[in-house]
C-alpha cells in the first residue's frame, strides 16, 4: 500500500522551543494511523506542521508525492486535507448550516453527503439553524468532524476527537470514524483514549520528546502490555 503522507526529518521550532526534532513518519493510503504519546510529546505540533499552521524549520513533507512543507495552509487544504483541531474550532457565531456551507469549498452542500453525516449525527440536523456556540461539547465535536468530511478529502488530520466527551458520545464518534474508515479515508488521528485507538487504528506511531519512538501495527501494540507501559507509561487494559 502506498504512503499518502510522508514526513522526513521534520523539525519545528515554536519561538525558542525546539518541538519536533527530526520526525520521520508515513501514513499509508486508506488506513487509520494513530499518533500516540504523552502530553507535550509533539503530537498536535505534528498535525499543525503538516497543515502548515506552524512552519517546519527543516525537513520534507509530501502529500501524494507532492512537497507541501513550504505551502500556505489554504493551499494545503485545497490539496484535499481536512483538519479537525483539538479545540474543535467551530465558528460559534455561525449556524450549523453556515459552518458546513463554509466547509463545502467546492460548491453547494451535497444532499447525499449531508444525509450520510446526519445518519451519524442526528443532532446536527436538529440544530441546523442554531448557532454553533449554543451546542454542547459533543455536538461541537460532531460539527467539527462533519465539517472535515462534508466534501471528500484525501487525508483527515484529527486531533483528540474524544477529549472531554461523555462515554456515550465517544462511542458514537468511534462508530462514525469507523464508517469514515470503511469508505476508504486516510486518517492521521491523535488520540489519548486507548480504547478508541485500539478500535480505530491500523497502524500506530508513538511520540516522545518530539521524536517517533515506536512504529508498528496497532493490534500488536494493543496485545503487548509491557510495551505499552514502556512507551506510554500506561497499559490499554487499565483504560477500557
Amino acid at each position, binding site marked *: 500500500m502506498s504512503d499518502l503522507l510522508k514526513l522526513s526529518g521534520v523539525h519545528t521550532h515554536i519561538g525558542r522551543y525546539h518541538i519536533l526534532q527530526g520526525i520521520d513518519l508515513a501514513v499509508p493510503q486508506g488506513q487509520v494511523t494513530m499518533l500516540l504519546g504523552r502530553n507535550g510529546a509533539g503530537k498536535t505540533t505534528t498535525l499543525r506542521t503538516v*497543515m502548515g*499552521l506552524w512552519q517546519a524549520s527543516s525537513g520534507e513533507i509530501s502529500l501524494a508525492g507532492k512537497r507541501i512543507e513550504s505551502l*500556505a*495552509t*489554504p493551499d494545503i*487544504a*485545497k490539496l484535499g486535507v481536512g*483538519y479537525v*483541531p483539538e479545540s474543535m*474550532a467551530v*465558528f*460559534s*457565531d*455561525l*449556524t450549523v448550516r*453556515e459552518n458546513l*456551507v*463554509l*466547509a463545502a*469549498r467546492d460548491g453547494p452542500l451535497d444532499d447525499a453527503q449531508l444525509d450520510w453525516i*446526519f445518519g451519524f449525527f*442526528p*443532532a446536527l*440536523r*436538529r*440544530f*441546523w*439553524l*442554531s*448557532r454553533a456556540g*449554543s451546542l*454542547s461539547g*459533543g*455536538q461541537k465535536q460532531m460539527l467539527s468532524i462533519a*465539517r472535515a468530511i462534508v466534501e471528500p478529502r484525501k487525508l483527515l488530520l484529527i486531533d483528540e476527537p474524544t477529549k472531554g466527551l*461523555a462515554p*456515550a*458520545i465517544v462511542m458514537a464518534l468511534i462508530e462514525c470514524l469507523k464508517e469514515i474508515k470503511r469508505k476508504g479515508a486516510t486518517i492521521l488521528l491523535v488520540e489519548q483514549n486507548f480504547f478508541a485507538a485500539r478500535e480505530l487504528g491500523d497502524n500506530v506511531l508513538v511520540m516522545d520528546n518530539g521524536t517517533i519512538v515506536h512504529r508498528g501495527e496497532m493490534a500488536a501494540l494493543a496485545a503487548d502490555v509491557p510495551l505499552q507501559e514502556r512507551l506510554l507509561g500506561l497499559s490499554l487494559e487499565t483504560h477500557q
Partner: protein
Amino acid sequence: MTELAATDPLPKPKRDLAPILLPVALALLMIPLIGSPSSWLTLTAASLAMGMMIFIMASGLTLVFGLMDVLNFGHGAFIAVGAYIATLVLAPFAASVQADSLWMNLAVLGPAALLSMAVSGALGLVVERVLILPVYGQHLKQILMTTGGLIVAEQTLYALWGPQIIPMPLPTSLRGSFIIGDVAIAKYRVLAMLIGLAVFIAIQLVLNRTKLGLLIRAGVENREMVEALGYRIRRLFLGVFMTGSALAGLGGVMWALYREQVHASMSDELTVLIFIVVIIGGLGSIGGCFIGAILVAMVANYGGFLVPKLALVSNILLMVAILMWRPRGLYAVTSR
C-alpha cells in the same frame, strides 16, 4: 445528548435583544428629563443622524479589529482624506451645489462621495501593504506605525491644502428643516440617517446572505480555522480593509458637510468616539457597532443638553458602564 427525530421542528436561533433595547430605553427615559417633546424629538433625531455618521466611519474599523486583530490608530486619516477629496469635486461645481434643485445637488454630491470612497479605499490598499503587512501580530508596532501614518497623512494634507479651514457649505436643498408641528428636523440629518441605515442594511446583507460575509464573520472569530478550510484570509482582510477605508472616506464627507468645514485634523475629535463605539459594540460586531454608535451619539446629545459640564466625559462613563455590564462589548464576537 438527547436525539430527536429528523422530522421535529428546527429550533429558531435565540436573539439577544437586550443591547437593541438599550437605546430605545435610553430615549424613553429621556422624555421626562428633557420635558419638552419637541426638544426631545429634535435631540433624538440629532442623535440618530450623528450615530449613523459615526457608524459609517467605525464599521470598517471594527471588522479590521476583529478580523485580523490589527490596531489601526490611523483610521482617522481616511476620514480627513475623504473630506478633502470631496472638496475637489464640490468647489469647481459650486454653482450646482448652490442651485435650488435637489437633483442638481445630488448630481454633484454623489460623484464627490464616490470619488472620496475610491481614493480612501485606494489609500487603504497602500496603508495595508506598506504599514500593516510588516507588523501583523505585533500590537505595539501597529500602534506606532499607524499613528505615524496618521501624522504623515495630516501633514501631507496641510502641505497640499494649507493650514486654513476650508468651508464646505451644505447644498441648498439640504439646508433648513422639515417642520412637523412644533418639531424641526434638519433635512441633512434625515439624509444622514437614510445613508447610515442603507450602509448598515447593505453590510448586514453581505455578512449574513453571502458566502463572502460568512467568511468575514468566521474570520473574525477564528482566522486560522478559515485558512485550514482552504480560504486565503489575507486577501479577504485586504478587501475588508479597503472597504472600511472607503466607508471612513464616505463618513468624512458626511461629517464635513454636517460641520460645513474641512481641516486636516478633523478626525481627531472623531477618533476617540470611533474607538469607544468599536469597544462597546464588541470587536468585529457590526450590530454592536451600530448600536454603540447610536448610544454614543445619544449620550453626547442628551448629555450636552441636560448636563453640559459632563459632556466631555459622558462617553467615557458610557463605555465604563457598558463594559461593566458586558466586558467584551454589547455583542462579543471574538474571544479577545
